């Protein structure tokens, strides 16, 4: 029974856009795509926070850089996703490498603050790029092309996003069980002991940070396509806070924590926005209730057998 949950969920996710189209609710296909993209970005952050034990407060920077990577290349005529998306990932990974090299020398609240500082620096840097839209953001002329697949239709883009998300979640599972994942678990619990055992702790944490940054860059590349533009707000600190909130809400260190957090948070926003002008009041109260009564997030409430 347990083994069937994941394939069934995946099948339902594949069927969703066709169902929406058949019932005349195509609008929600884009909404679902957006949720999955945020889920991917939050999953990437969960790798750093939940698996690597590093509370990073600047993840939106890598998310936003991925978006700008695609948008800037598009402005220069590069429309192929086969080139632009890997380039966006590389840009985000490179930024994460630089930020990580400096930040990982600090601990605890200082790590939180220094990652925040670097993210804000990148935010202001992007803001100053007047040739690339400045504070208005940089629109995309079209979606990227991913021959032979069709990204032009909302359903096509939804399915590609779903495939990327599913692949990332599968990779996360492999990674958690790998030697690298075991080493991260050791570092999370007792960093000094890992060093005494001879592990290159700094390098392992840096690798974790860079992988998380790279995946966030991929999410950003998808976001630019979904949104039709790269906006500086994607890099602002409240966006980093939002991603962190998704991770904590869903479940820190749980493989589906980031996705659950994105689905619940964005879903709640959408539902409340339908009935009131003051949706954020409800969202805030809900978050406060979760952190008060479910300290391990929503995933922590799932039956024991379903946890990693």
């Amino acid at each position, binding site marked *: 029974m347990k083994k069937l949950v994941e394939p069934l969920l995946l099948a339902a996710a594949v069927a969703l856009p066709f169902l929406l189209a058949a019932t005349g609710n195509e609008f929600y296909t884009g909404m679902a795509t957006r949720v999955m993209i945020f889920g991917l970005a939050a999953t990437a952050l969960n790798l750093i926070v939940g698996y690597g034990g590093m509370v990073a407060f600047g993840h939106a920077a890598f998310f936003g850089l991925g978006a700008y990577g695609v948008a800037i290349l598009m402005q220069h005529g590069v429309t192929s996703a086969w080139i632009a998306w890997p380039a966006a990932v590389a840009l985000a990974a490179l930024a994460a490498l630089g930020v990580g090299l400096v930040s990982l020398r600090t601990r605890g609240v200082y790590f*939180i603050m220094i990652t925040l500082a670097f993210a804000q620096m990148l935010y*202001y840097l992007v803001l100053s790029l*007047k040739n690339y839209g400045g504070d208005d953001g940089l629109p995309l002329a079209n979606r990227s092309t991913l021959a032979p697949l069709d990204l032009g239709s909302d359903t096509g883009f939804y399915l590609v996003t779903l495939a990327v998300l599913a692949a990332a979640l599968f990779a996360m599972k492999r990674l958690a069980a790998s030697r690298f994942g075991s080493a991260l678990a050791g570092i999370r619990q007792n960093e000094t002991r890992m060093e005494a055992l001879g592990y290159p702790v700094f390098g392992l944490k840096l690798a974790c940070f860079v992988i998380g940054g790279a995946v966030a860059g991929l999410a950003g590349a998808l976001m630019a396509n979904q949104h039709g533009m790269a906006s500086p707000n994607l890099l602002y600190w409240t966006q980093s806070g939002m991603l*962190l909130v998704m991770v904590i809400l869903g479940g820190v260190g749980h493989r589906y924590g980031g996705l659950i957090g994105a689905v619940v948070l964005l879903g709640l926003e959408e539902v409340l926005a339908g009935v009131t002008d003051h949706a954020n*009041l409800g*969202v805030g*109260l*809900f*978050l406060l209730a979760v*952190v008060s009564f479910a300290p391990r997030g929503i995933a922590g409430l799932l039956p024991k057998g379903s946890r990693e």
Partner: protein
Amino acid sequence: MSQLILEQALNGLQFGLMLFLLAAGLTLVFGIMDMINLSHGSLYMGGAYFAAAAAQASGSFAVGILAAVAGMALVGTLLELAVLRHFYKRDHLSQVLATFALILIANELVRMVWGPQPMMLNPPEALSGPVEILGFFYPAYRLLIIGVGLAVALFLYLLVAKTRVGMWVRAGAANREMTEAMGVNVRRLFTAIFALGAALCAIAGALLGPLLAVQVGMGENILILAFVVIVIGGIGSIRGALVGSLLVGVGDTLGRALLPTLLRSVASSEVASNLGPALASILIYALMAAVLFWKPQGLFPARG
């Protein structure tokens, strides 16, 4: 040129002192309760709205400020008693989630009460003009802000350095368990610190209201600067918060004013006017990263 620098330096001093009003409360809450309070900026926003509403109703700027201080001290006390004290012993992640939720709630409440449009808050009539100092004209209202800021800084210094309560606060910042062992009623002390922090935020919000827009989201921008300040100064240190505030306030203001000009001498004017403001903003964060890199505990570490 030198007059421009002097004027901008005064503006920087004024901004730095207002930052200090925010940072003082934030650094105590962070240093003593080990609490990351992202909603500190919402207290500042609340202060600005209270002041604007009371000033509009009464027609008096002074009444506005007093109402803001009293109102936010009350709000801060209630917030501490009802919500925040339950999170002191929780991990930083839970604190981030809870206080982020408070930002959402505060922004929405303000929008419900006062609407989505920015509010007007006018400086008092008597101070709307410039005064002459050192041979040039400077807005009287900004001088008032500097004066109030200096007075509050002096008050805080005396409070922390010379009084029994201040001794508890310093002991608490250096070592929390020690304070509890000394038999101080820690819970009451925490509530009082929080109410004081909220009142200081209200002063800053009310005073900056006429210069900046009183609008939803105004707390988020300044909150991060306040965090930068306390990390530079050393978490838990009032003196560090003052030095950090002035560094950030003057650095940011002078950078914004002078960097475009300086850049123009090495690059085209278009590049300079684009890059200048960004570089000035980045400067502050770079300063913080550099301080953390070389002095990981900040300039004035509170913990021994």
